[in-house]
């Protein structure tokens, strides 16, 4: 492990052991009277753990100050996310500190909730389960989210005790179609993983792998490994889907095909490939059946079926066949209908045709989410659910009432005689219907283990004293199942024993190391994959698209996933990457669609499908094809706390409740949708003032040729916005012809950040990290409408006015200019230029004239219009190293000066200079694609100094002579 990581995780062993076994950390939260040995007031401790916000299972490091976690970052040692983390992962904190988090068990007695002590609650659970077990077999059922193997095993043993079948795993997104296709094409009943980084061309039939698909952080990293400019080359990426997801927005080519016609496109490609003589090595029967199956899909037919330009399809096919290492990905997270089975199957087969050995598909490290049961099974489970068959139903952190509206879940749970137990920490829609709520410890508070993929195991440990007296879920189950004499004193013991039994962790020393590193990532891989099936039952029936009727597509949101994120203020506040709308759930529609319904942007419409209705404001965009409506899943909760309740709408209610016959999965699209104007308008809380750049040099692109070949001499420098040269914020950046002011030196360091627009995918993780690190206020929809959002770092999204489907993202934060216009205009020196080139903002000195903000060409300064509130205990999350600002002062990005100061301290102690890369501002630290770099411009060897030599380097509005220290590298664009 590299040095930094060791520093971070040192000492974890002892405290976690202490925390785990003897000492009761909660005593040490508020008053550090007896601190654990390694807790030093004012010094942060880092605990390795695992993110449980989605099934991907990224490794995290939790930063703990005085016994409470103040920030979650990716674990650099973890193979899945390699130190990065998405915004959802970081927002896990806000679940722990959520003001409406339940702190005691709740019992429902004739409709009224009553707080219970833990012993009482557990006693009740034991009594109920014992009774159920006594009453016969299979009368205790467990419905759980995806969980680690150990907990699954424990559930299994417990349910054995109760003579009941093992738990049923429920995930709203269970990839049924993909699993089916994998079974058919690969003979694998599960979810294989992919090596995007090894491909040189990606064709994607809708898989939104930058947002939610299987393992977004991992795939985002891999994607940029193949798609960012390297050695003057970058891989190609084509996306085929009716809606422009964030993933599609990052593609070189987005083909807005008819819904459910992706399969046809893939078949068209198969046909082309076979024609060009590919797939000779395929087993004959497969080849024959493929040929016959793909025969009808001539380019013309495909173009017609999918309603995509034929020439685009041809160019794509040409690229595909020219590619050395192509890789085809299946349909979206929310793509599990019959058509999606076809599409995924076609994708898999296309992979086999192009690369018979499937070298870029990893059968050993399969994604754990594959353990989730198909939707059909879940629906069936609830159909059968009745007091006659079941006495106790334990729901572990699932919210089927929200996820499966119209499936009669509520009725099922409401049945008298059925004792429903929920382990959720929040009164969500489902928990409201439970009889007993056991708000067990949350992932960062308890012991567990979770492997997001096979052949790796990732640990969870208490990174903080629990805010509540709650035991861990494992402990509860242990006690409930084994009563007085459990085989293990607690779940940690169970876990440790089990792992050592499996030879994963052997002895205390390995255990401590396991905890320090955050898991074991080098487990022996499963046996090589079974031989691929020689015959594949191919039955393609591309769903005919009724052009006339509207189709509504519900897509999982990068912010809320399946809706569990909807109660985290940060996720609501940070706007959607594409629409830039925060807090609300607009209905995305194409201008033509709106025109044909006499609708205008921000009109509120009633959306009616065969299964339900809702009202939502429309958002005009070419990001969906005509005839298609798109809406994000996740909001529109009827419960689940102040931030989620009645914010936005839930499109799931419009979808067919029953599972698809072929795939056994749900269909996240509804046809024959009717739009009826309500005549009302709803101002959209969007953070962008304009979607285009108005011909200004802000977010720039460069064609691959220009970026790749250095022969072209640099353009003649001038004084206008068009031809102003790059002027480094260093003495050499000054030219007596241009500069009225003399150059000035800095003391050893001149901090600077380089943003590679070619790597930025616009996911917003950096923004979330900034909120978390710098105690930025959350203002809510109304204030955003008033233009008072506080984000220090915003992702500016610009569309190309020539072709609005072309999107570019630009992270904008304080530019720490050498000649910062904001500084001189302040009457009290609140902002001024530091010895190390930073643009300091002294909160105590600021009197709020706001002139600095007015004079900032980048408008990155944020003013505290009010004193923003952090309802208890959200305030416990605040970073003690950063002042929390109050009303009337200006604030802005500081390059995480607290981290710079810390690095100075360390360097001083070891009496050396600060090393290049030693300082990682929060945004940079978490960026999944490594788009940001930070360092000292005065060090000629530093990374940033090297990068600014790149011919893509430029400064936003450089012609104003501000000499920004944030230097951007143009995005490299290419055509397919």
């Amino acid at each position, binding site marked *: 492990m590299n040095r930094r990581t060791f520093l971070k995780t040192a000492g974890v062993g002892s405290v976690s052991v202490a925390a785990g076994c003897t000492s009761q950390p909660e005593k040490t939260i508020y008053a550090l009277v007896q601190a654990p040995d390694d807790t030093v007031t004012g010094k942060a401790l880092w605990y390795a753990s695992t993110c449980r916000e989605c099934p991907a299972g990224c490794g995290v490091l939790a930063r703990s100050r005085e016994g409470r976690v103040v920030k979650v970052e990716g674990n650099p040692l973890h193979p899945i996310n390699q130190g990065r983390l998405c915004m959802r992962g970081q927002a896990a904190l806000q679940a722990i500190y959520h003001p409406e988090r339940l702190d005691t068990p709740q019992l429902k007695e004739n409709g009224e909730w009553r707080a219970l002590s833990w012993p009482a609650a557990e006693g009740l659970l034991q009594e109920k389960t014992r009774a159920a077990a006594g009453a016969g077999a299979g009368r205790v059922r467990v419905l759980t989210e995806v969980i680690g193997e150990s907990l699954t095993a424990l559930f299994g043993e417990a349910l054995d005790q109760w003579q009941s079948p093992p738990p049923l795993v429920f995930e709203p997104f269970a990839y049924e179609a993909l699993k089916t296709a994998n079974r058919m094409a690969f003979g694998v009943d599960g979810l294989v993983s992919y090596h995007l980084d090894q491909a040189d061309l990606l064709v994607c039939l809708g898989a939104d792998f930058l947002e939610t698909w299987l393992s977004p952080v991992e795939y985002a990293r891999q994607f940029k490994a193949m798609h960012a400019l390297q050695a003057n080359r970058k891989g190609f990426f084509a996306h085929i889907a009716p809606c422009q997801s964030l993933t599609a927005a990052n593609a070189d080519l987005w083909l807005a095909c008819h819904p459910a016609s992706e399969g046809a496109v893939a078949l068209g490609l198969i046909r082309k490939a076979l024609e060009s003589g590919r797939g000779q090595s395929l087993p004959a029967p497969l080849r024959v059946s493929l040929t016959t199956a793909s025969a009808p899909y001539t380019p013309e037919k495909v173009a017609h079926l999918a309603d995509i330009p034929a020439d685009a399809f041809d160019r794509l096919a040409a690229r595909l066949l020219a590619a050395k290492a192509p890789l085809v990905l299946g349909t979206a997270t929310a793509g599990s209908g019959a058509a999606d089975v076809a599409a995924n199957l076609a994708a898999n087969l296309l992979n086999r045709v192009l690369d018979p050995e499937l070298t870029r598909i990893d059968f050993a490290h399969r994604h754990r989410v594959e353990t989730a049961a198909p939707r059909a099974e879940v629906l069936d489970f609830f159909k059968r659910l009745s007091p006659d068959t079941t006495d106790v139903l334990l729901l572990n952190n699932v919210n089927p009432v929200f996820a499966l509206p119209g499936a009669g879940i509520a009725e099922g749970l409401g049945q008298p005689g059925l004792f429903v137990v929920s382990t959720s920490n929040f009164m969500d829609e489902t928990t409201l219907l439970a009889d007993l709520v056991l708000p067990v410890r949350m992932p960062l508070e308890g012991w567990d283990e979770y492997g997001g993929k096979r052949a790796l195991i990732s640990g969870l440990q208490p990174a903080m004293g629990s805010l509540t007296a709650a035991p861990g879920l494992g402990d509860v189950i242990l006690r409930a199942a084994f009563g007085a004499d459990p085989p293990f004193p607690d779940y940690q013991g169970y876990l440790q024993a089990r792992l050592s039994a499996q030879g994963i962790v052997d002895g205390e020393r390995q255990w401590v190391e396991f905890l320090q590193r955050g898991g074991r990532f080098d487990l022996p891989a499963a046996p090589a994959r079974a031989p691929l099936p020689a015959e594949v039952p191919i039955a393609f029936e591309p769903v005919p698209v009724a052009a006339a009727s509207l189709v509504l597509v519900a897509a999982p949101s990068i912010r809320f996933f399946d809706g569990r994120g909807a109660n985290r203020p940060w996720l609501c506040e940070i706007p959607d990457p594409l629409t830039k709308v925060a807090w609300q759930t607009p209905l995305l529609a194409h201008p033509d669609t709106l025109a044909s319904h006499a609708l205008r942007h921000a009109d509120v419409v009633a959306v009616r499908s065969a299964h339900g209705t809702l009202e939502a404001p429309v958002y005009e965009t070419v990001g969906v094809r005509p005839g298609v409506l798109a809406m994000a899943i996740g909001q529109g909760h009827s419960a689940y706390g102040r931030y989620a309740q009645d914010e936005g709408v839930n499109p799931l209610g419009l979808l067919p409740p029953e599972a698809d016959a072929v795939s056994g999965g749900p269909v996240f699209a509804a046809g024959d949708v009717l739009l009826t104007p309500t005549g009302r308008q709803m101002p959209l809380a969007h953070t962008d003032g304009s979607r285009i750049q108005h011909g200004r040099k802000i977010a720039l692109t460069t064609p691959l040729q220009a970026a790749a070949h250095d022969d072209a001499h640099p353009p003649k420098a001038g004084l206008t916005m068009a031809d102003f040269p790059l002027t480094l914020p260093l003495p050499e950046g000054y030219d*007596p*012809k*241009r*500069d*009225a*002011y003399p150059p000035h030196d800095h003391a050893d360091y001149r901090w600077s950040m380089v943003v590679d627009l070619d790597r930025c995918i616009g996911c917003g993780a950096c923004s979330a990290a900034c909120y978390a690190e710098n105690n930025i206020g959350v203002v809510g929809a109304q204030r955003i409408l008033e233009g008072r959002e506080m984000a220090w770092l915003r992702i500016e999204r610009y569309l190309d006015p020539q072709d609005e489907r072309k999107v570019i993202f630009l992270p904008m934060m304080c530019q720490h200019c050498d000649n910062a*216009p904001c500084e*001189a205009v302040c009457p009290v020196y609140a902002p001024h230029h530091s010895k190390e080139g930073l643009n300091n903002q002294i909160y105590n000195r600021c009197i709020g004239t706001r002139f600095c903000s007015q004079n900032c060409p980048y408008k990155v300064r944020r003013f505290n219009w009010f004193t923003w509130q952090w309802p208890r205990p959200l305030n416990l999350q605040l970073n003690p190293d950063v002042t929390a600002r109050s009303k009337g002062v200006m604030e802005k990005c500081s390059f995480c000066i607290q981290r710079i100061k810390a690095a100075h301290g360390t360097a001083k102690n070891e009496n050396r200079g600060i090393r290049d890369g030693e300082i990682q501002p929060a945004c940079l630290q978490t960026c999944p694609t490594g788009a940001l770099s930070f360092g000292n411009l005065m060090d000629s060897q530093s990374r940033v100094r090297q990068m600014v030599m790149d011919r893509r380097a430029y400064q936003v509005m450089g*012609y104003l*002579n501000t000499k920004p220290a944030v230097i951007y590298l143009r995005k490299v664009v290419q055509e397919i």
Partner: protein
Amino acid sequence: MKPVLSLKNKPLIIGSALLMAVALGTFILQLAGGHPQRAWQAYLINFLVWSAIAQGGLLFSALMHLVKARWTGRLSSLAEAFAAFFPLSFLLFLGLFIGREHIFPWLHEDLHGKEIWLNVPFLFARDFAGLLLLYGLGFGYLYHALTPKLRPGETDSGIRGFFTRRRQAPENTPERWQQRKTVFGLLYIIAFALVLSLIGFDLVMSMDPHWVSTLFGAYTFVKAFYIGLGGLIILAAVMRLTQGEASGLSSSQFHDLGKLFFAFCLVWGDFFYVQLVVIWYGNIPEESSYVIERVMRMPWQPLAWAVFTVAFIIPFVLLINKNIKTRPVFMIVLCALIIVGIWLEHLLLIGPAFAHHGAAAIPVGLSDALITLGFMSLMILALAYFMDLFPEIAMAQAPETT
């Protein structure tokens, strides 16, 4: 007593003729001698400066008439005499067309679309029209201002004859004259502001086609009035010196005129600083580089200081004092100095562009001085001609009752 400023004054005429000959010689020599740039630079600057004096001079009369100032007395008449230079000024403007190749540095530059405004035909067309309008109105005003003052004589002919005949015309009641005079005066003032702004933009500012300063127009016409007053003071002082008490110019008039002059010295300084501080503070190279080249870098920096000293600091310090204002000799020197200062200021604004931003030393020398003297004698002759034509102006008379 015979007026000095008269075509009958042999030494004056011969001297002027000589100077003009020399000037012309120098000009041609330079054209031939491979410095056409320099020749035309001198030509342009002199055209601007001397026209400005003439235009500003007449403005004094018009302005004072409009505000019903009662102290001006004969000064107005003298100011009106400067209109005599208008025709020459107009011809000189047409002369610029010959030297267009050398005069407009932007001719062979990529203007990124600015060609719409910056192209020779359009430029000359609009400035032609502008000057025509300005001088037309100027003469209109002069006509109404002058005619009532004329004492008809039997030998009247030509322009003078026309003037005096109109004077006798019955429909031309004094009230009517006054009214018309006021209207023309107002129009002239408005035209003065607009046309001089245009000239400033076209013949000075656009020499650096990428530089803009919104105040430049106002700066130009304030400057013109400043040196116009300078010219007027010199003329008045000459009258005072040559005609003594008979000139009808009291020292209180010189005092008031001096105060006005002082005021516009301040306004000019203000406009100078106002542009400097905004551009310096904004620090946007598009506009600051223009100032930097002229004020902060060699070879131009010393010239900038010279200009500011001569055209502002010196007059500011001296003119605070009351007595100085009433000393004709002293005022002649001071005003001459200031006019030179403004001449150099034009050089400062235009020079770098003419030298294509590559001047090693300030491109000014004897030749420029000679050419300038030539233009000066032009002005002198124009005035002399006018004085001969209207002796009522040349000599003092009973104070008018405007």
